[in-house]
């Protein structure tokens, strides 16, 4: 009867608001998530859903102001970081635990530094290694991300690598911090399919071997499901559904998730019409009241426009925020 161990990351009710010159824009309106030891979770959402802002908050990359961060709690292995995350300068603390891989490797590496310089700087300054140790460690890191001839490649500049290779270097750079959680923000969106497949393999391999936590942010369920075991679906700054990836892909419960799955083109269907969700995802700051999805929802009733649905537990530790769960489940059966 012992209590389960505290999760690696436990974030409760994150809200991020941007104060622009003429108005305030709520980008994240209440996100709670947990990442277990060695667990990979995905955040899935369309543009403007707040998924990237969530990732950047955890790394302390948002400038405050204009951003204002509020949380009910943020715990890292039980350690309380609730106050720290809302303050400027969190990145110093954050990067002892989190590291990030960005969407665009072409611009994320400093063009005037050799990649050896970039890697060694992190190892020397953040991990306190000697220059010689750092060099050896840098070679090991490049080996770990499967860049051959690592010793010589350290002397190259970023532009001398292909996009896929640059993303591998970014991953090596993230690993140099020995993070406990790797945050990958659309890490393969800028890459070709064949390159994407190899990078996804690499991320999965590294995450499993090192038993790291991982938060994988993407707009593509198929990509996410290659790497993670649990998914959070975001819409207009909130999480609308969460659950194990298999469950979620086989039995989506929220009408938005259902619609998203159905409207994604698939390789095994030819020359068909896609059941599209009408309307557009709201821009940040323009989310309708109640359930933000209601104007596009086929099940919406009056209550959806007035009252925000609370996340309710359904089978297998999945949560869904919808007023019409039963009808959604029924309709799914008949689809």
């Amino acid at each position, binding site marked *: 009867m012992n209590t389960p161990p505290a999760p690696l990351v436990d974030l409760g009710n994150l809200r991020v608001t941007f104060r*622009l*010159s*003429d108005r305030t824009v709520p980008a994240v309106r209440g996100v709670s998530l947990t990442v277990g030891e060695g667990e990979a979770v995905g955040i899935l959402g369309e543009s*403007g859903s707040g998924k*990237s802002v969530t990732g950047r908050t955890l790394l302390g990359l948002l400038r405050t102001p*204009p951003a204002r961060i509020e949380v009910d709690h943020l715990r890292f292995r039980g350690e309380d970081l609730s106050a720290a995350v809302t303050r400027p300068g969190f990145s110093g603390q954050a990067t002892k635990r989190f590291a990030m891989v960005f969407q665009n490797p072409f611009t994320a590496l400093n063009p005037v530094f050799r990649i050896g310089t970039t890697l060694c700087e992190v190892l020397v300054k953040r991990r306190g290694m000697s220059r010689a140790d750092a060099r050896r460690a840098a070679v090991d890191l490049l080996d770990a991300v499967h860049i051959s001839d690592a010793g010589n490649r350290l002397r190259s500049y970023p532009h001398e690598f292909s996009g896929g290779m640059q993303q591998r270097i970014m991953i090596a750079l993230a690993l140099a911090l020995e993070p406990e959680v790797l945050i990958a923000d659309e890490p393969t969106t800028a890459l070709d399919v064949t390159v994407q497949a190899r990078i996804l393999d690499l991320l999965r391999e590294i995450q499993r071997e090192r038993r790291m936590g991982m938060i994988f942010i993407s707009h593509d369920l198929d990509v996410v499901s290659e790497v993670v075991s649990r998914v959070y679906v975001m819409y207009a700054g909130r999480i609308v559904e969460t659950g194990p990836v298999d469950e979620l892909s086989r039995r989506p419960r929220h009408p938005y998730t259902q619609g998203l799955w159905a409207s994604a083109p698939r390789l095994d269907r030819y020359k068909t019409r896609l059941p599209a969700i009408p309307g557009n995802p709201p*821009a*940040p700051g323009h989310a309708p009241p109640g359930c933000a999805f209601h104007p596009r929802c086929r099940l919406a009733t009056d209550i959806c426009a007035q009252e925000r649905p609370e996340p309710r537990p359904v089978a297998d530790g999945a949560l869904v925020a919808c007023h019409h769960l039963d009808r959604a489940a029924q309709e799914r059966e008949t689809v």
Partner: protein
Amino acid sequence: MRTSELTDPTSTAEGLPEEEAPPRRRAAVLRELGWMPLAGFAVVAFVIVVAALAPWIMPHDPLVSTSTQRFAGPSAAHWFGTDGYSRDVFSRMLLGSRVSIFVGFVVTATVLLVGGVLGLVAGYAGGLVDSIVGRIVDVLLAVPGILLAIAIVAFLGPGIQNVCIAISIHQLPAMVRVVRGATLSVRKRPFVRAGRAVGMGHTRLLLRHIGPFVLGVAMVQATLGFADAVLYEAALSYLGIGVQLPEPTWGNMISEAQSFLTRQPLNAIFPGLGLTLLLLGVNFLGDGLRDVFDPEGRYRS
């Protein structure tokens, strides 16, 4: 106007990730600009009005002695005092402002017209036309700063007409470059390709689609060019190779006053402050325009 586009750099700079940045509103841009361009505009407008009305509002004849006292300090009769020939400094400054404004407008209009057309054509046509224009620009740019203007005046001789020619030639390459650069970059924008794909002719593309985008950038450059022209005219006149005495300009007034700097420094200070104020006004205005038309500073020269 770029401000409405999704990839507005100012929003991302404020910390919103690009894809989640909302478009910035035009009103917000204007508010951020603040009072500076307005103040600049007010100053420039004031000087223009004064220059236009100078012959009617001058209290004294600026060309002849109207006082019994040389180098007199400010007084009720002579607001800015008198100079070495006991002429009224205030009246001379009013008359001098006409030269500054005249040269400013003539040069700006010439450069905008000639440089704008050359830049637009070179940037749009490319190929041989671009090479020829580019070569001319290279040659003009090979002579540094004010030396080109001095050299041209040296050979053409002094006088307001030659000053205008010299300064226009000096400014031409910058305008051509800026307009050419803007044209090139607009020409590559997808909406221009879309226009070609729809079947538009060159004239329509240039006038309806490329021109309006380039015009903003050209106006910014022209405003800065106005300041430059005022400054160069003053400098040439100060050096004694521009507008010749006894016709007063702020530049040659300063030059004249320098010999008697210890005796009456105000004779140099008043025209100097006049120039500074006018130039500040134009630069304030230009800065404001630049923030609106070229927020990323891509076409600065």
